[in-house]
C-alpha cells in the first residue's frame, strides 16, 4: 500500500513537471512558415528552412534582425525593399552573397494573393 501511494505521488509530480515544461517548449518554437501581408500581399518566410535546413543559428537573426514574435516586423514602416537594399531585415543576408539577391526571382518570396488564398484554404 505504501509503495502504491509513493507511485501516485511520483506520477503527480511528473505530470506537474511536464505540464510546466510543455508550454515553454511551445513558446520557443516558431511557426514553420510566416506570411507577411504588409506592405504588400503576400510574402512567405520559411522559418523552419532558415533555422534548420540552412543551418543559421538563432542568434544571427534574434534579436538583432528580427524579434521573436511573428509579424512584429510588419509594424515597422521601413519593412520594404529600400531598407533591404541597405542590409536591413531580409536584406541582411539576401544580398546575392549570403543568400540569393532580391532584385530578381521575386516569386521565390512573393507568393502573391493567389498564394495567400491557397494557403488559407488548406
Amino acid at each position, binding site marked *: 500500500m505504501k509503495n502504491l501511494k509513493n507511485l501516485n505521488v511520483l506520477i503527480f509530480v511528473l505530470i506537474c513537471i511536464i505540464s510546466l515544461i510543455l508550454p515553454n517548449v511551445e513558446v520557443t518554437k516558431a511557426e514553420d512558415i510566416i506570411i507577411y501581408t504588409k*506592405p*504588400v*500581399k*503576400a510574402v512567405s518566410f520559411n522559418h523552419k528552412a532558415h533555422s534548420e535546413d540552412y543551418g543559421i543559428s538563432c542568434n544571427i537573426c534574434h534579436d538583432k534582425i528580427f524579434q521573436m514574435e511573428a509579424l512584429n516586423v510588419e509594424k515597422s514602416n521601413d519593412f520594404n525593399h529600400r531598407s533591404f537594399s541597405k542590409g536591413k531585415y531580409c536584406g541582411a543576408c539576401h544580398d546575392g552573397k549570403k543568400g*540569393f539577391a532580391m532584385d*530578381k*526571382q*521575386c*516569386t*521565390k518570396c*512573393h*507568393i*502573391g*494573393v*493567389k*498564394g495567400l488564398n491557397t494557403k488559407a484554404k488548406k
Partner: protein
Amino acid sequence: MMQKKFDFDKLEIELPDSISKIERRKFLKMGFAITGLLLGGKILSLTSVVDKGYAFQKEKYPYKPHYSMLIYQNRCIDCELCMEACSKTNQVPSYGYRTTILQRKMPQAIDQQIEFIPVLCNQCNRPPCVTGCPTRATYKDKRNGIVMMINKKCIGCKTCMTACPYNARYYNEEKHAVDKCDFCYGSRLSKGLTTTACAEVCPAGVRIFGDLSDPNSEIFRMVHQLERTIWVLRPESGAAPNVFYTRG
C-alpha cells in the same frame, strides 16, 4: 597561321524556315529578336511583334496618341493592387474584372517556379471583338486606338466575349452590357490624367503606359531596343495587340 578574315556583311543569320524571305528581311530591318507566347506559355514563333503591332505598313502607328502598355512580366508579385485600383476607379463588380493576374507554374524550373502575368484588354488594331459585334456597340476609337463600348447599343449576346483572344471582357449585370478595360479613358484619361489606375498604383513598376506614336515616350524607347526581347500574348490570333511584354 593566317586566319581568314570574317566577312560580317555576308554573314547569314539563321532563322526558322517557317518565316518567309520578306518577313525575314523585315525582321532583320527591325532588328528585334522576339518570341511569341501563348497564354498557356508555349513559345510559338520568332517574329517581330512591333512589326505586327500596327495595322498599316505605311503609317507606323495609326493613332495619335497610340495608347499602349508594356508589362515587365518578371516584376509582377501578384499583390493585386492593380486589380483593386481598377475595380475602384472603374466600378468593376466583384464577379468581373477589367484586368487580372494569371499564374504560370513551372515545377521543373530551377529557382523561381511561379510567374505572374498581368493581362488586360490588348486594344488590338484588328480587334476580333469589334468584328464580331452585331450592333457596333464596341468599336475602335479613331482618336486613340482604344476599343470602346457604347453600353446602350449592347444587346448582351456575348459574341465579343467569345471572340476575344485575351478573355478580357465580362458581362456587367448593372450596366446590362459587356464591360472591358478602356485604358481608364472614361475615368481618367478624358479628365486630363496621363496614366491608367493600374499603372499608377503598381508598387513594382510592372506596367508602363504611354503613347507608342511619340518617340520621346518611355514606352516607345523601351519597345524599340535591340537588346530587349518583346513579345505579345497569342500572336497567332492576328489581332495586332497593343500590350507588350518584356522582362528586366
